[in-house]
Structure formats: structure tokens, C-alpha cells
């Protein structure tokens, strides 16, 4: 048994394997594997997360900002680098 797609109607169907390639029974049939598109790649949502310096471990799992690129242990302190006050100093 094989899963096929009818190219004329777009419908998928289980058929005996010998249908595929048969001049009458399988002329419009194509093995489903050759035409099924891969699922679209999911965008990684982590890069859109915003850093929260004083995040709280709401679910008590020992982690804060779970599932984001900022995920870290609850006790870990992170600090944002302060923006330079005098931009000209960094231009050297």
C-alpha cells in the first residue's frame, strides 16, 4: 500500500503499490513523498525577547525568562552595559 496524491484533483489516497506507474490506474498518481512540501521553518522567537534585569522566577523552576535567549538561573545577576556618556571617547 502506498500513499499517493492525485495530480489532477489534488486529493491524497492510499493505493496498492502497483498502481504507481500503471498506465491507466496510476497515470495521475504521484507518490505522496515526492510532492509533499516540508513544513515551513519556524522563526526563532528567542531573538525578539527583551532582557528583563530583575526578572522573577514565577513558576518556581529555578529559571527566569524561560525559553528566551535571556534564560538564566534565577540567582544569576546580569547587568546591561551602560551606554557611553561621551560618544566621542569611543570613537578612537
Amino acid at each position: 500500500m502506498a500513499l499517493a496524491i492525485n495530480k489532477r484533483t489534488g486529493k491524497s489516497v492510499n493505493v496498492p503499490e502497483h498502481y504507481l506507474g500503471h498506465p491507466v490506474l496510476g497515470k495521475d498518481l504521484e507518490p505522496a513523498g515526492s510532492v509533499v512540501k516540508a513544513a515551513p521553518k519556524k522563526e526563532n522567537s528567542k531573538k525578539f525577547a527583551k532582557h528583563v534585569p530583575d526578572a522573577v522566577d514565577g513558576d518556581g523552576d529555578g529559571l527566569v525568562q524561560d525559553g528566551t535567549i535571556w534564560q538564566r538561573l534565577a540567582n544569576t545577576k546580569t547587568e546591561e552595559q551602560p551606554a557611553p556618556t561621551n560618544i566621542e571617547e569611543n570613537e578612537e
Partner: protein
Amino acid sequence: MATKMLRPNVGLYVATYDAFVDWTAPTLDEITDAAKVFNISPAVTDDYTLNMTDSESDDSLAIVDNASVQTPTYTNYEASFDGFRDENIAADSVYNKFRSLFAAPDVKYYLIKRVGKLHTAAFAAGDEISVYGVKTDFPIEILGDGEMIRTGARFLTTGEVRVNIDVAAGTAGSGPELKALVGTKSTSNGKIRVYWVPSDNLSGTEAAFLAAPSVADIEATGSIDLTGAIAWDGYDLGASDSNKIDDRGILDEGQVQTRGFAQFSGSLTFFRGVTSETAGAYYNAYEAFKAATDGSRPVGFLVTRVGIPAETDLAADQEVSAFKFIADAFMDNTEGEDSVKFMVNFAPQGNLAVNVDTVV
């Protein structure tokens, strides 16, 4: 001296549901209304059924009874006509009138029988007739090797029955209508085509296909014209009587039936081609149904066209019937002196359409 009445002193007529003001007392002007009462006698085969049967009965005993008791309660009757199919499907004939009257299910009629006069004899006040109320069931095609094609009109009873009642006085009209042309009987041989249309080959929905079968889908690659491969031996395909459900109201004095599930069946015997064949009707039929145990179980529609010469191309506006099946058992038939065949049983899948017109 008493004289026996001989054939053919009987006539069968069909009246529309609104033909009578009071169906228990038809008047002469009503029963001779050519627009509402039709003479179908020449189309009906001799083995018709239109009669009362034994009434239902109650067997309650009184304490003084010394033997069994059966007291009739409500009346029973049955009706079923087989009518010849006209070779010319366009002719204005009695055969085609019969077919058109009973082509669709759930149409109410009064069937009328008159015994004692030729069917062509004009009605007169005082003629004794019997009136049976019916609703149509799906018609069935009756086919057979060397037999005429017949349309089997099947009926459900409405509980309205009166036998041997007089036609009341009135002014006679020109009816019942009797077509001038009787028709030409049509043989089954060479007048059937059968197609297999897999469900995945339908370009639209199954409901749309059943309402108006598409010639394009029937003839598309992947669908098969099975006609050339089918043997008469074991041919069984089509609708049969629907389930008849007793459904009386408190006012009903006769048997009232409601149409239950439609019934249809399919079993076809195919010729087996020689092993070296890799094309043709025998080969295609075998290839389509040989894999009965791999789990794929082909699902589709067996579409039949009856009454049109098989060599006529399928086209729009031709009457066909379609039955949804799943292919089931595959059985070799190698016995006897005839050619090797195989039989495929098809299991019904709950959807059918009878006598619907094809579309392009």
C-alpha cells in the same frame, strides 16, 4: 350459465396525489382527468403486485373462547410494478411515461386497479375500482442475460386503501391519459456500461458528483470503463428496496411505511486476461481490484448507464446511477468449462444517486 372472466380484463392507472378531492370516493370527472390520471397498463409486466395482504390481527381471548381468536386490526397491502424500458429513451411512449412517473423517490401517488374491463375502455360512473395510496421508493433496474430491461417501481404504503369502490357520477373527461405509442422493448444485452471512478478522481465533492456526475471525472485517467470485462454470470449491481419502517399515526387504519435507509449492493464477475497481457479491459479490471489484502481497499463509485447502446459515447444529459462502494473480497472462479474469471464484492458506503443526468 356462469361465465368465467378471462384475460386481459384489467387496467392499471396512476393518479397524482392531488387528483381527488376525496380519494375514498373518486368521481368520474376526477378519474378521467387526463392531466392527473395516467394509464400505464401496457408497460407493466404480468408479475405486478397490487393487492391487499392479510391484515394485522389481535389474538386476545375472552374467557368463554374455546379456540384460537384472530381479530383483524389495521389493513395491509403491497404494491410493486415492473415496467418495460423503451429502446428509444426520447419517445413519447407508455414505457417512457412509466419510467418518468416512478424515476424519483418519495413521490406520492394513488395506484388504481380496475378489473372487469379492458384497460382502454372508457370509465363510467359505477365502475368498480380499487385505490391504493403509495409513495415511491428508489426505482431499481432489472437486467439479465437475454432479458428485457425493466424498471422496477417500488412503493411504500401510505395506509390509504379502498377496494372495489364505485366511481361516483360526474362528467367524463378524456383521461386517463394513454400515450398513443406503447414503446419498444429493450434487451439488456449490449445496453449497459459500468465505470469505476475512484473517490480521489473526483474533481469536486462526492455530493456534487452524486447530484450531477461529471463526464470528465468518469472518463479521466484513473477511472476505468469496466464494461468490456464484466461477465453476465454473477452480475449484481444496483439499488434494491429501501428499508420499510412502520410509521403509523393514531388516525391511520392501514399500513403506513416510511422509507428507511436506501439499500444497494454490488458484486461483479470479471474475465481474467492471459498473463502476458499488459493492457486492455481485462488487465485493467484485474489490476484495479487484485490487491484485496494489502489494506488499501479502493474506494469509489460504480457508475452504471442502462438502456443506451454501450457503443454510444458517454455525454452530458445521459441518465446514470452512481453507487459508492469500497472494494472488498476478491475470489477466483476457475471451475467448469467456461473461461477463468474473478469476482469482486463491493461493500456499500452509504451514498447513491439513481437516474441522475450527467454533466460535462
